[in-house]
């Protein structure tokens, strides 16, 4: 399933369509969306509520499968893989930052960061996790459980977790949505700083114009359709 993508394109979507059943019949959430994202690029997906941003993010990250169309990751048809194969690629190549942090409540900050490293059988997960936690300024909070951390701290742990395996691609879903403005700024700085350091490709969904403006490119979704095709 190799595709002759132009050199440098890491992620590509072809004619993506997502439909779901609803009480009123079939509901089209995404309608024929095609786009390409180059390695190292940062892209913001913006649009009003219900425009399909998060659905698009889920499809691009392989968390969900499209009704029609395909997603290609590094030259391989990602969307044609089964759930377990997609999970394996996510573990190796993709990092996530979520609006509601999604730290595992049963694990300490350190253990949360260690988790993706352990899933790819990293030789020294604890050492690496400590280093990443230190890079987000939370070395002293390593053994805290999430519920003992502030919202900003939780999101920093989530960012550390996302970058721990040095993924080629990072997805962020409204990373500042649950934070106050000041903390939001700090988080954005941290996110872009790490992205630059790790040379990762960043795809983020946001309502925040300031956050979008810091990206290399902005894709605007409206009623499931891309207004500025890539």
């Amino acid at each position, binding site marked *: 399933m190799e595709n002759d993508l132009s050199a440098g394109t890491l992620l590509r979507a072809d004619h993506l369509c997502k439909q779901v059943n609803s009480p009123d019949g079939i509901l089209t959430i995404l309608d024929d969306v095609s786009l390409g994202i180059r390695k190292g690029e940062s892209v913001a997906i913006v649009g009003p509520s219900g425009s399909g941003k998060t659905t698009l993010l*889920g499809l691009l990250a392989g968390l969900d499968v499209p009704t029609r169309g395909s997603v290609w990751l590094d030259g391989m048809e990602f969307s044609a893989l089964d*759930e*377990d194969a997609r999970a394996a690629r996510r*573990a190796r190549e993709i990092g996530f930052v979520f609006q509601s942090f999604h730290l*595992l409540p*049963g*694990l300490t900050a350190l253990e949360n960061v260690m988790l*993706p490293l352990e*899933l790819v059988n990293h030789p020294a997960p604890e050492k690496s996790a400590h280093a990443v936690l230190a890079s987000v300024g939370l070395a002293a909070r390593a053994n805290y459980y999430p519920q003992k951390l502030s919202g900003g701290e939780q999101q920093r742990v989530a960012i550390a977790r996302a970058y721990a395996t040095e993924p080629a691609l990072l997805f962020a879903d409204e990373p500042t949505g649950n934070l106050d403005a000041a903390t939001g700024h700090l988080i954005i700085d941290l996110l872009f700083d790490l992205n630059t350091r790790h040379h990762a490709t960043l795809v983020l969904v946001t309502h925040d114009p300031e956050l979008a403006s810091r990206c290399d490119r902005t894709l605007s979704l409206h009623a499931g359709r891309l207004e500025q095709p890539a």
Partner: protein
Amino acid sequence: MTLLRLSLRQFRRGWKSGDLTVMAISLALALAAVSAVGFFTARVQTAVLEQAGESLAADLVLESGEPIPPSYRKAAIEAGARVADVMDFPTVVVQGNNTLLVEVHAVSHGYPLRGQARISRQPFGTPHPATGIPEPGTIWIEPRVFASLNIKTGDEVQIGKLSERVAANVSYLPDGGFGFSALASKVVLNTADIAASGLVNANSRVNYKLLVAGTPSVISGLETHWKQNLPTGIHLRDARDGRPEMVNAIDRSQRFLSLAALVSVLISAVAVVLSAQRYASRYTDTAAVLKSLGLTRRGVQNVLLLELFWLGIVAGTAGVITGYLAQFGLVHVLKGLLPADLPAAPLTPAFSALGIGLVLLAGFALPPLMRLGDTPPARVLRRDLSPPPLRGWIVYGLAIVACFALTLWQVKTLTLSLYVLGGLALTLLLLAAGALLLLFTVKSLRHGSGAGWRYGLANLNRHRRDAILQMVAFGVGLMVLLLLAIVRGDLLTSWRTTLPDNAPNQFIINIQPEQRATVRQFFRDHGLPEPVLYPMLHARLTAINGTPIEAVHVQTERARRMRDREANLSWSASLPAANTITAGHWWNAAEAKLSLASIEDGYAKDLGLKLGDTLTFNVGGAIITARITSFRKVRWDSFQPNFFIELSPGALQDYPSTWITSTYLPPDKANILVDLIRELPALTIFNVDAIMQQVRHLMDQASLAVEYVFLFTLAAGIVVLLAAVQATRDERRFEAAVLRALGASRRLLRLATAAEYSTLGFAAGLLGALAASVVAWVLAVRVFNLPYHGDWRIWVTGISAGTLIVAISGILATRKVLTVPPVETLRES
């Protein structure tokens, strides 16, 4: 390795946060019930097995209702074997004005040839091996004799014509049984005392035994020789025969206690399901995050599987330890029925219980948790995405298979398992239907009540499934305990009241022909009506219509016993009172001179007898043949001497017999029989009241043991309640927060909680009492043919116990809901 670590971390967290607590408690409780019974029965079984080799107190035993011919003893000694004599028979021990029916175990020097008797100075004292047998003039007695006669070591008691000194308490005899089978306590006596005691004469009912022990070759030689030439009436037993009656008794008690434990396990299973569902719903987000981070479906499932495994190990171990401690309680409850020094429990029941724990988790916790493997990873973006619901057949199928596996594990046989599960399912369904009906009633009541009550009762109907589960779980526990504690006693009392006030309460047996006049005179002297005396002869049925009895085919175990045992024959010219002819006719004066037989219905049915059949008996060596002319129905509870086989006077009256009678003695005259015994020491007197009391005591002890195990069922009911509270805790917290934000006082919320749980408990108690009453009615009217007069104590105890237990548990379990500041809850949600 990663999954192992992750599972351990998740387990640790689940444990700390309390998410796994209820599941752990329910598992521990189920295993505690199972392992308590397991450890207990294993200890008793080990005791029996350890003693199996010595259960005859010899290698070979010759046994007969007649003295064993001396030629056997001579042959054994000549072959190089050791021998000892044993005589077992019932008699009465007298001390002051007290009498007690006992089983004499008269033994000669050398007894026991295998194993050792253990005695102690005081009842229940530390036993030590006996070095010999009681010296002539002394006896060893079992603890019950000490208690019943209120005597101590060194006291003298009268047995027959002798005055014997109590030398020791006997705590173990190799051939003594554990008391499961023996209603009368044992008194060990030296055979040297028998002749002078006057207790044994030609027609006494004595079981004579010749014990033989020697080298295997000597024993096998003797056994082969004797087996070939054994006359009818002498039985040969070797150590391989063991003690089937003991094994059966233990087997039966194990099944009964295991059934009681099974109910706890199945009710705990409900709590396991509820708490596993709750855990699964709380774990869904974690599963989604893990999948988004790259964990596969199988990976998520393996983590959960491992978590369950850790839970099984930790809760299982706690349960097994609790069970181990609880079995001491069972041993205590059954003290006196068990050997004084039970061996330590083996480890096997622990593994068996852990296995049950795994089945419980696999059948009831696994399905909701395994479903989490299918959690869509996109849930990290959209919380409304959930794993697809489980297919009904998987959930119910696994639960049914697990229930069946657990039942089979506990009760061992397929048919019984099916009966138990069927019966249980029917009971639970009926209780559930009753619970539903009560909920509807409660719903209609709520309109006329205050806000607290209205809100509390509304809660019950909103969580209808949980409410029904809790009512049924408690209802079953209460029903069984009510049946055991109240109905059992009621049935016995009810039966007692159906007997006429002056129903005979004393049986006098072993009256020699020449003593008949003395006995009659004795009653006349005491101003009592002269009793009717019935002749009784020991005989063996040897053939039916000329076919040797061994060749007569019988269908049932009971029939086989009837066929092989020694029969008591009687003869009478007229049809005895309490007997009615059901077929054929009773002999007239002319026929009475012939050799005819009248047979009890049940006996005839067991042996397949027909009118006109001829029966051949061996009566003390003489052969008698009689033709059946009638079948009789016998009212056994008339407490008259009654016989399965009555012959015409012509058949039997010339043979030597002893005589038997029964009579009613008013309580103030009960002691006069002590004087009769003093005058005629060889008489044996059965006091029906004392035997009834003994039966009652045995039943009390046995049912106390079962009640003890059923306490776990009640505890399991409480855990179901905890699980249901936990399952709705988030919802309850949110609602309480909203109500308090709207201005509801804590008092109102507490009232609502109290209303909800006291109503739940009241309903559970009502259901339990109703079910117990229905079962009591069925048992009384349908099974035992007794009048049933309800018992208010069932209702009062059931309802008050249900209301109190459930209300207190419910209020305690939900108290945290009311203490969390509402703002915190609302912010979280």
